[in-house]
């Protein structure tokens, strides 16, 4: 047991330094006042939190929530059939699964840039449509909510497919056969047996997609431009351009609170990551 404690100590210390201490600082800053030259100063106040209710910021919060929710719904819609396909593909399962995992690990930044270069005015989509004579002026595909949602679905689809696949994989085939024996058609079995049994996977996938979408910064920054400012961009802006650290800290805390509550709610016993 001494060895175990010694082995855990450095990681515990690092978590204190890189996670707990930074969060504590943010928590303290969120109750302070913005300093004259950036930074923070006294007096203590709760004004940073009440400011979040300002219509200007409520618009941003609301936009973040509906964009994240819509992206999550689209991931579920697109991810479920894919997970079903992988779970039913027998020997090739591992290959098909790797094809989903691969983009999940390869550079988020570059994958976002790939969509930038496809969607821009002189990108492949517009150039192709123009050369086919279907459009005269390039379509405004980039720098809007649609582009951000597309980017989010593209980036986080694997987060949905993996938990869905995990539950589908463990599904008891006897139940499906029983449904078929009792006269259910394949579609009926899917909707009335498979889908309800997948509820834990759907719940896990939904949270795993919703949380990073809600806190996204890069996707909205690159694909949304100045038109689609989300909470993540608001936070970043407070710590850089506007230099209003206390307000940025309060916004971070609010974002963190929502994310933590959601994630610990789906982290069920026996299915824990750690």
């Amino acid at each position, binding site marked *: 047991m001494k060895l175990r404690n010694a082995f855990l100590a450095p990681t515990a210390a690092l978590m204190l330094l890189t996670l707990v201490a930074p969060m504590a600082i943010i928590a303290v800053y969120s109750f302070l006042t913005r300093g004259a030259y950036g930074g923070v100063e006294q007096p203590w106040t709760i004004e940073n939190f009440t400011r979040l209710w300002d219509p200007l910021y409520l618009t941003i919060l609301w936009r973040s929530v509906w964009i994240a929710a819509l992206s999550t719904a689209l991931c579920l819609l697109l991810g479920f059939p894919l997970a079903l396909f992988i779970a039913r593909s027998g020997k090739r399962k591992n290959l098909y699964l790797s*094809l989903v995992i691969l*983009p999940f690990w390869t550079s988020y930044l570059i994958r976002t840039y*790939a969509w930038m*270069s496809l969607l821009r005015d002189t990108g492949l989509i517009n150039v192709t449509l123009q050369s086919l004579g279907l459009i005269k002026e390039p379509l405004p595909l980039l720098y809007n909510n649609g582009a951000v949602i597309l980017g989010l679905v593209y980036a986080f689809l694997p987060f949905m497919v993996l938990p869905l696949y995990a539950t589908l994989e463990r599904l008891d085939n006897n139940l499906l056969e029983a449904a078929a024996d009792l006269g259910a058609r394949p579609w009926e079995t899917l909707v009335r047996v498979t889908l309800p049994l997948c509820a834990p996977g759907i719940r896990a996938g939904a949270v795993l997609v919703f949380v*990073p979408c809600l806190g996204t910064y890069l996707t909205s920054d690159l694909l949304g431009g100045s038109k689609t400012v989300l909470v993540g961009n608001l936070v970043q802006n407070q710590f850089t351009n506007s230099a209003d650290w206390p307000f940025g800290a309060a916004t971070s805390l609010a974002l963190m609170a929502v994310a933590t509550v959601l994630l610990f709610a789906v982290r069920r016993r026996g299915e824990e990551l750690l």
Partner: protein
Amino acid sequence: MKRGLALYAVAAYAFLHVPLLILAVFSFNSSRFTVWEGFSLTWYRALLRDGDLIEASVNSLIIALGATAIATILGTLAAYGLWKRSSPWVAGSLYLSLVTPEIVTGVSLLALFQWIFRFVHLRLGMHTVILAHVGFSLAYVVVVVLARLRSFDPTLEEAALDLGANEFGAFRRVTLPYLAPSVAAAAMLAFTVSIDDYVITSLVAGVDSQTLPMVIYAMARRGVNPVLNAVSTMIVTGLGILIMVSERLRRS
């Protein structure tokens, strides 16, 4: 239904992979516009002459290798410790670090560093980036190694202890060799998440520690640039190979 599902899967995989394939194809285009004019390596030659890009790549490699080495060693030890007896605090904080939005991790680390710098004469630089990277990649290492430990038979360690090994000896000579493939896989994942990070890095980097993703981001913001296609293709290919090897090791 089976047919439909397979057709759908083809479309879904196309959605996941074609954007990067197009990027790769156009990195070999001799024209700088989105019209294919012929095969050329112009942009790859241009990137080799780009001083900023080379310097940033070197920085990124130093940071990623440093952070990976530290995170892999400490994360492996921590996984073993958690396997012996779980600790809700350590496990909980690792889980939290995994799910904290990157932007929040970034600004909170920035706030901490700036606060520390009031008392210590230091500045943002490679060291702060490496520390931040160790912080967010530790959890990945622990998850991967812990998964492997779950299939480890503890009686093997007990046998080693009975035969006279001390606790550390049993870990080093019996458990660690069993874990080796997962440790290698974990290191590759840690390297991948480190070399790829933009959001956290850009907040805690100093003027002398520009990383590759930071340069890529700046280039992407400026717009059309075929050199960027070439860089991206090289990175995606490199990381792709690393991930495939890591996956294979993890499953073995």
